[in-house]
């Protein structure tokens, strides 16, 4: 099992994972999309709204604005907090007070102001993400909330709370996770030790020096302790397949009997695109941590039963 990071930036992450089962990669993808806690505006209290859009319309747009959530771990869920409705420990407050005097005006996300009671609040370092995108294509304008004509006014308080992507898509920290699956082939080690001569082995390892590295790596790796099957197999990817087939044919061995396709394990390339709410590496680390928590929870309940 091998993991390499190909490309890192503030919003993108590309990694290749070798020798992994599809169900584990899919479980990580599903936790990244639905189980990582982030912040988003949940309640909106309107005082004045004389704009052309109705209250729910503007509230819906405010909810979808991404909010920087690195402090989301320190916040509590409102259902677990001791307060009545919401307080400074479980929520973070934004105010918006815009009126239009002379010309048509656009209301942007930069007009949202954080409201804090004192400097030690958790909410003091939380702000909406105005400009996002990869380094080359950063948008020049912040997020548009609404437009006003002369004489119209909007005044509201937005209350941001912690939530999961499972509850509503606004809490999803990721805009997309792409997984590409590549097949994995293997030769059984027993076969190689018996049928291949010493000279053949050396020649094969010369052609594909990678193969030698992998055979020694798999022997010593920790996965050996779990998965006895992988100990007896020498894996290689599809890019080396052609050279190995040629080598086998040259030495008068039938590749169809020797080379087999792995059923459970594959190679993957995973691309994570974040909305900017958390860095992509943080999203990956959080998803692994949360999956482990779930497994522990079930393990504890199993022990209680026994």
């Amino acid at each position: 099992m091998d993991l390499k990071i190909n490309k890192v930036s503030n919003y993108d992450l590309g990694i290749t994972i070798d020798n992994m089962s599809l169900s584990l990669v899919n479980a990580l993808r599903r936790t990244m999309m639905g189980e990582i806690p982030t912040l988003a505006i949940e309640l909106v209290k309107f005082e004045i709204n004389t704009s052309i859009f109705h209250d729910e319309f503007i509230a819906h747009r405010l909810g979808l604005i991404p909010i920087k959530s690195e402090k989301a771990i320190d916040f509590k869920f409102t259902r677990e907090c001791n307060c009545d409705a919401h307080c400074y420990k479980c929520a973070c407050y934004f105010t918006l007070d815009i009126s239009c005097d002379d010309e048509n005006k656009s209301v942007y996300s930069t007009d949202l102001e954080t409201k804090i009671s004192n400097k030690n609040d958790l909410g003091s370092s939380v702000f909406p993400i105005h400009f996002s995108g990869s380094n080359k294509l950063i948008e020049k304008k912040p997020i548009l909330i609404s437009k006003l004509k002369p004489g119209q006014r909007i005044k509201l308080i937005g209350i941001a709370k912690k939530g999961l992507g499972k509850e509503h898509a606004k809490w999803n920290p990721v805009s997309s996770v792409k997984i590409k699956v590549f097949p994995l082939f293997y030769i059984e080690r027993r076969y190689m030790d018996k049928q291949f001569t010493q000279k053949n082995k050396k020649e094969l390892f010369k052609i594909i020096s990678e193969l030698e590295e992998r055979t020694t790596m798999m022997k010593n790796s920790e996965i050996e302790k779990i998965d006895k099957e992988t100990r007896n197999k020498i894996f290689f990817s599809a890019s080396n397949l052609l050279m190995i087939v040629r080598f086998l044919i040259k030495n008068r061995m039938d590749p169809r009997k020797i080379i087999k396709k792995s059923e459970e394990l594959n190679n993957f390339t995973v691309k994570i695109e974040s909305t900017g709410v958390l860095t992509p590496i943080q999203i990956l680390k959080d998803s692994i941590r949360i999956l482990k928590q779930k497994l522990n929870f079930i393990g504890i309940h199993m022990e209680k039963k026994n």
Partner: protein
Amino acid sequence: MSNIPNPLDSILVPENKKKIKIFKKNENENCCYYKIEREDHTLGNLLHSQLLTDKNVLFSGYKKPHPLEHFIVLKIITDGKISPNEALDSSLKDIYIKLSLVEDCIKV
């Protein structure tokens, strides 16, 4: 008033239900059904495919009977050398080890 179900229904386990409920329909001791509340395909597929790699497990399958009722049913049949509970425990540990390996690779 509205038809929308509570969005927290899919996350929080209600007080009158347990997280895991084991029930055995047959008299065979090696066959076991587990009903796990408030979990979906994320864990179901992961556990089921890890159990299949165990040599002592003859059958493993999971299903989510209805998309609006948030629980999964996991069925395990072993060949007698280990009990289904032990098979589930060992597969949980194996997945935990694999995840720790991934974490170590990221740190480096």
